[in-house]
């Protein structure tokens, strides 16, 4: 299970935010445009998502807090996720796995697994075939329901292909 999420400087999270999730069903509510889907984007991003379309960004550094009337732009985006690994779903020897991703405006990018610096592909390997890697159906974004129903056969196919 996902135990904890730390978001700092990622999209509309100008300042450090910590969310402690619980087992079972976690409900997130709030007005339009206030950052709910951005939480999903943060999780995707820290799990290694690169696709700008999936992250609703037009370039990599778009995900760094760009400023608003109430705060200046951030110089980096950082997300950490703590996953309970007591069932050893992830192939590492820790009961709690902490994955961190950090991106600076310069494009400099850092990845950590339990404080050890790694490369993006190590993040991808960690989650490969766990149901959380690429092609998992465990993250259903706003509008993805329509992709399945899409009259565009390629779009619909993609959903089934990813599952294979």
């Amino acid at each position: 299970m996902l135990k904890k999420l730390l978001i700092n400087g990622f999209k509309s999270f100008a300042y450090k935010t910590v969310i402690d999730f619980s087992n079972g069903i976690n409900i997130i509510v709030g007005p339009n445009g206030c950052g709910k889907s951005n939480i999903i984007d943060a999780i995707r991003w820290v799990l290694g998502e690169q696709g700008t379309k999936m992250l609703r960004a037009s370039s990599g550094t778009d995900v760094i807090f760009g400023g608003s009337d109430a705060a200046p732009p951030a110089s980096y985006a950082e997300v950490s996720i703590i996953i309970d690994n007591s069932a050893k779903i992830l192939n590492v020897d820790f009961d709690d796995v902490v994955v961190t991703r950090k991106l600076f405006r310069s494009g400099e990018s850092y990845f950590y697994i339990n404080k050890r610096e790694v490369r993006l592909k190590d993040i991808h390997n960690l989650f490969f075939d766990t149901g959380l890697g690429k092609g998992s159906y465990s993250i259903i974004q706003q509008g993805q329901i329509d992709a399945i129903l899409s009259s565009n056969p390629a779009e619909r196919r993609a959903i089934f292909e990813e599952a294979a």
Partner: protein
Amino acid sequence: MRDEFLKSFEQIRKNLEYTFKRAFGGGECIIEIQDRNDILNSGIEIIARPPGKKLKNINLLSGGERSMIALSIIFAIFMRKISPFCLLDEVDAALDEANVKRFITLVEDFSKNTQFIIITHNRITAQHGDVFFGVTMQDPGITKVFSFKPDYLEDTIKEGIY
């Protein structure tokens, strides 16, 4: 490659029988690879028969019926690779009260073995949580998140859901 796709497709089809029955309480849903000679490029056809009605291509069904069919397929795919957690973002937007309740039943089925994180504007979906998080933007452009107890559900997040 092609065999993997076929094997996965067959399994999804089998799971779909279960998820569709849970979602619609009856009826059937058929997914077909349109061109069996060109499996890797073929389109996929989805036809369904809600209880009491006739079998139709999903393009001819209602908005809510289409959502429930998509959710049945998504859960059928999900059953293939059970994940430690599942994130759903406003998947209940097109559903009426009765369908929201069936959707929640499907979620509760899976939640015995999977943690769910669900974003919703729907009052009924929201009531079925174990924990609750409110997301707001009091300072323009800056997100704040706070957790709260169900007794605050009605007032605290009244502005976010209806």
